[in-house]
């Protein structure tokens, strides 16, 4: 679930055209590092390359593997949403509209006996009566 949060956020972020600029203001840290120049050099020689390598690795992991997974997940959500919407339109709503159609069909079938032929009317009426009677007796 948390992944999907990330995913949605990531999708949004990636698609957002104007990315927010991160401004780094020269604060105390900057001044300190300015003073401790040798340390800086030391770090540059030792830690930084390693960190950069690790960073590159995590970056790759982040942008390809994790993000890919997250993108996949969020795209999955959208596809899922389309599916749910499809079900909503054709299954849930279709059922309701289907009932209405069925009622009309039955109504049509019930009012067609109006052929205008009295003998047919009589035969139908008597036949149904006899049928109901038979059912009643066999009940």
């Amino acid at each position, binding site marked *: *679930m948390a992944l999907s*949060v990330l995913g*949605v*956020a990531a999708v949004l972020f990636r698609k*957002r055209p104007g990315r927010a600029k991160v401004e780094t203001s020269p604060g105390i840290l900057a001044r300190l590092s300015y003073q401790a120049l040798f340390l800086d050099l030391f770090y540059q020689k030792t830690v930084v390359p390693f960190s950069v390598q690790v960073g590159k690795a995590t970056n790759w992991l982040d942008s390809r593997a994790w993000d890919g997974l997250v993108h996949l997940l969020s795209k999955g*959500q959208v596809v899922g949403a*389309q599916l749910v919407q499809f079900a909503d339109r054709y299954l849930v709503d279709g059922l*309701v509209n289907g009932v209405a159609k069925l009622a009309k069909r039955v109504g049509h079938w019930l009012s067609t006996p109006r052929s205008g032929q009295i003998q047919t009317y009589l035969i139908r009426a008597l036949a149904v009566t006899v049928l109901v009677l038979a059912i009643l007796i066999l009940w």
Partner: protein
Amino acid sequence: MEDKLLSYLIFIPLIAAALVVFLPSKQAQFARWVALVATSLNLWLGAGLYFLFQGAEDTDGLALFEKQAWFTLDLGGLGQWSADYFVGVDGISITMVLLSVLIMWVGVIASWKVQTKTRGYFALYLLLTSSVLGSFLALDLLLFYLFFEFMLLPMYFLIGIWGGKRREYASIKFFLYTLVGSLFILAVIIGLYASTYHPEATGEYVGVERTTDDALSYARSVQEDVETGMIAQDQLVRKLDLTQLPDPRNTLVDSVLSITNHAHWLGWSLRGLAFLLLLIGFGIKLPMVPLHTWLPDAHVEASTPISVVLAGVLLKIGGYGLLRIAYPIFPDAAVSFSTWVAGFGVLSIVYGAYTALAQTDLKKLIAYSSVSHMGFVLLGIAALNTEGVSGAIYQMFSHGFISPLLFLLAGVLYDRTHNRNIADYRGLGQVMPKYTAVIGVAFFASLGLPGFSGFIAELFVLIGAFSSEFVPTWMPFVALLGIVLGAGYYLWTLQRMFFGPLQLRQSSWRESLTDLTPREYLLTLPLVIAALLFGLFPQWVLNLTNGGVSRLIEGVTNNQALLQLLENL
């Protein structure tokens, strides 16, 4: 003034409707003024009600009520049928009443520009106002049903005449759907008429002497007489008083809806079935997935003010009905079905959110987000504890501000271009910055950002659901997913429509896309402020509802225990 205040709330719009109808056709443009005056009066009365309510809470929990005999029918074998004109407010209904008066007022302003058949429009609108208030205020089930049904007709015409392209389909669908729901409710009403009686009215009819002034002990003595057979069946007065119906002693022993009736239908006890019917009936109104498909159609086709009223007030009657009718009268069934109710709530939340994610029409997106948000109401009610039920009421209240706001804003865009397709716009922020700001705030309010009222409501519901014994723990977790998805579709929409370089499907829209006008500010800003205020000061609402909610829960638990006792006897 005070004792008739509730009636004024119902009848002022009714009288105004009559006035509008009889306006001469040359003065048709005054219809909107009549409507404005009537709803403003109502708004003012609502404010008065708010202050009165804070002072007074009666022993029954009714701060204000009015009761007048309506009719009594002597139906021979069916006994005496009676109904009262009984209206009142308590903690459950006060927020809904206040919400209604405000939203109906907003609706009038939003419909200021209606030009065609003005008189008919405002007359129907005022009828709708009256029946909405009536259904929130009614404490007699038959009276409630009258208002509940009567809401359908004005709404049918308001959607069907002043709506969009497929308005006829949408209005008929709305009508048929809600009618099916109300027929379910009617079936239960018939069952209740057959199985319950009103002790006080029965006592008065038979002539049981009043020994004390205490209504409760009088009722008890009548109940004893009925139990011992001193009062015959055909002398019982049957009246569906919503303050009396919850008492299990008022249900006749071995009647259809008595707890000792062990008849079953498809494996459900008849009480369970009755509860289920009510759940479906109100669930359609709420709407509860899978009974919701009328809602998107109705919203998309309805004009903006009607969408506002529909989302702001009408949906709440579903949740309100569950709290007022289904849960108190059938506490046993409510408890045993609570997990299912919660399940449907969670289903609505997730389903609504997912479907919203896939929408291309802005209004439909908001409509489905309503489905999702009303799911929280179900979840909160099902939790059956103070947090949950308060949260449910809070959610109804908060959604009552936020969704009208969203519909109004969608309407603003539609007014300009007559197009609501999300994909047809891009970078609207460039041309309509103020609009973008307001809609952004509205989206954040709707997705439940802390600081807005929706957050409080959802938080309460989730806390209630987590601590409830009726709701499995996985359900609120799934509901959380709904919130996340909510953030997803709103932010995505924001990003798609408002940010980035300006792109419109038709370049001619460029001129018509002007920013918010003062009238639109007047409509939207109060709602934004309300959403913010109620997010920062939840106690304003909770103070109103607390008493009612705790009484409701107490009543449900007590009566459930009593019913269990009776069943095991």
